[in-house]
């Protein structure tokens, strides 16, 4: 705030100060705005004196649409929430419905989910860091990170058949088991990723030009971060080691060994470092999960949760009836309400579901982690210069699909 205070002190009177304020709208369709969001910025010279984010440009009515669908039909919608880590949204929603049922997926399914979820987290962080670095001039870094992301997207494609619209999980398991040779492909891709990470680390982490743009920019204090409901890398960059994977130990994360990187000052540079370290930690989690991958089913055998095998559908009357009822009526989670927190790419992605037992969702609510970050944009930007909006907004990692739902 020092630059702002200095400017206010030098201006002769309050009236004089406000007369020189100019309003500039950044976005909604601006290359640095990552999705579509408008930042109405008030500038005094190049100094930001006021900012107001305006969101909702990508509102598709996820919640309304979900509440007018069957439970299973919501899974493809969750792909479109955080579209750089769609698998994490799939997993979050499926685990929420499983909690509503009071069941757990088989261990093999959980380990596969951990692998795919962490791959998604890495693609999320790679996209965020790559784009943020490109916007402040590090174009090579962006290309290399997108190359690394491409290696991982190929794995996602191998597993799910799609790069983005994965629609992969089901209630009580996954739609597919690991394809043949997946784990060796995985090891190969991870070693390539590690190579790229090492190169990019050398390229940027101690680069003076880069550090000058991000150090002490967009700082947010611990207290403000908590009050604004921050979570994920943004909160950890402030020095608070809150990670839902550890704090709520869902899935099989308690059997895997990983560190929670934290920053100290909560500026853009800390967020960069935290995300870089999280990519390395996720790589290690994937390796451990691949080593521990148990044999067994990848889908629960609970009746009326999964579609019966085709040999049962055509072979016996129970299978046929189950199949018919699944197709015609869908899932019937028992009446109740649950909140399932999971660690998304951006922070705590929680699903709040209400069921009345009738087979139609009453309420499907997703807590969007980057909602809070965009809300705190004025706090992080006022007092900085207009050029700082770009690294700050880059570090926020706003994902329109998740923000506006």
């Amino acid at each position: 705030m020092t630059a702002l205070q200095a400017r206010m002190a030098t201006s002769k009177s309050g009236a004089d100060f406000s007369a020189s304020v100019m309003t500039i709208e950044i976005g909604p369709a601006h290359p640095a705005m990552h999705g579509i969001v408008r930042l109405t910025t008030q500038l005094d010279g190049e100094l930001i004196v006021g900012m107001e984010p305006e969101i909702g440009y990508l509102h598709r009515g996820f919640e309304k649409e979900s509440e007018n669908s069957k439970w299973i039909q919501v899974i493809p919608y969750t792909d479109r929430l955080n579209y750089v880590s769609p698998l994490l949204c799939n997993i979050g929603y499926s685990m929420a419905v499983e909690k509503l049922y009071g069941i757990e997926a088989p261990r093999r399914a959980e380990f596969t989910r951990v692998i795919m979820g962490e791959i998604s987290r890495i693609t999320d962080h790679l996209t965020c860091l790559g784009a943020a670095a490109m916007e402040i001039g590090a174009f090579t870094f962006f290309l290399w990170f997108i190359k690394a992301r491409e290696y991982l997207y190929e794995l996602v494609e191998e597993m799910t058949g799609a790069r983005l619209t994965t629609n992969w999980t089901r209630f009580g398991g996954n739609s597919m088991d690991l394809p043949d040779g997946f784990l060796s492909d995985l090891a190969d891709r991870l070693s390539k990723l590690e190579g790229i990470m090492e190169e990019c680390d050398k390229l940027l982490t101690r680069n003076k030009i880069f550090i000058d743009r991000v150090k002490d920019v967009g700082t947010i204090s611990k207290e403000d971060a908590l009050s604004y409901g921050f979570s994920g890398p943004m909160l950890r960059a402030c020095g608070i080691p809150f990670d839902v994977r550890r704090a709520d130990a869902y899935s099989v994360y308690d059997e895997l060994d990983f560190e929670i990187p934290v920053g100290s000052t909560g500026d853009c540079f800390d967020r960069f470092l935290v995300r870089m370290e999280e990519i390395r930690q996720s790589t290690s989690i994937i390796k451990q999960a691949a080593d521990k991958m148990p044999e067994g089913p990848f889908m629960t055998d609970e009746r009326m949760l999964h579609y019966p095998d085709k040999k049962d559908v055509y072979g016996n009357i129970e299978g046929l009836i189950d199949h018919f009822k699944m197709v015609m009526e869908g899932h019937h989670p028992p009446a109740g309400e649950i909140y399932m927190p999971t660690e998304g790419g951006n922070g705590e992605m929680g699903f709040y579901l209400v069921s009345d037992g009738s087979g139609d969702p009453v309420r499907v609510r997703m807590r969007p982690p980057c909602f809070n970050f965009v809300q705190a944009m004025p706090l992080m930007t006022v007092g900085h210069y207009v050029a700082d909006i770009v690294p700050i907004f880059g570090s926020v990692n706003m994902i329109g699909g998740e923000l506006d739902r």
Partner: protein
Amino acid sequence: MSESIKSDEMNADREAGKLTALLKQKFPNDVLDFHAHRSDETVVIERDSLDSVCRFLRDDSRCAFEIMLDITAVDGLEMNMKPRFEMVYHFKSLTHASRIRLKVPLEEDDCRIASISPIWKSADWYERECFDMFGIIFEGHPDLRRILMYEEFEGHPLRKDYPIDKQQPLMELKEIEERHTYGREL
């Protein structure tokens, strides 16, 4: 599922957790109901006590809920819920690694509730969203406007009586001065 398992589950749901017991002791007249379905501690409270309960949750060392995670509402029109609306708040405590859910029933013809944005900043936008989607008025909110929909939008889309296929006219883009209220305090 056999009946005995079902009733065991029901009993577990009815067991008051530590936080529930604390709230019941502190606000004996305001706690209307509680449950712990799937071990999510849930306390239903009286509307007027929301502010004091929230302050207690944040400031008391036995609670220490630093993060207000989420605010949403449930429209119980199709479930014939009485009263029709229910506010749902989720909190997270890092100190005690605990979570709690507060629920506040709201009458349809009096959808008003105190804003908790003075207590947690994150409530500001969540309350705007809840106002936008459900038409619930948050008293004491500094800037209660629509957030995801546009100003001219009529109705509240997440209410169950709002038809999913209803169309509304496109709006002309307004001039910059009309779009924003710049008189607001920065």
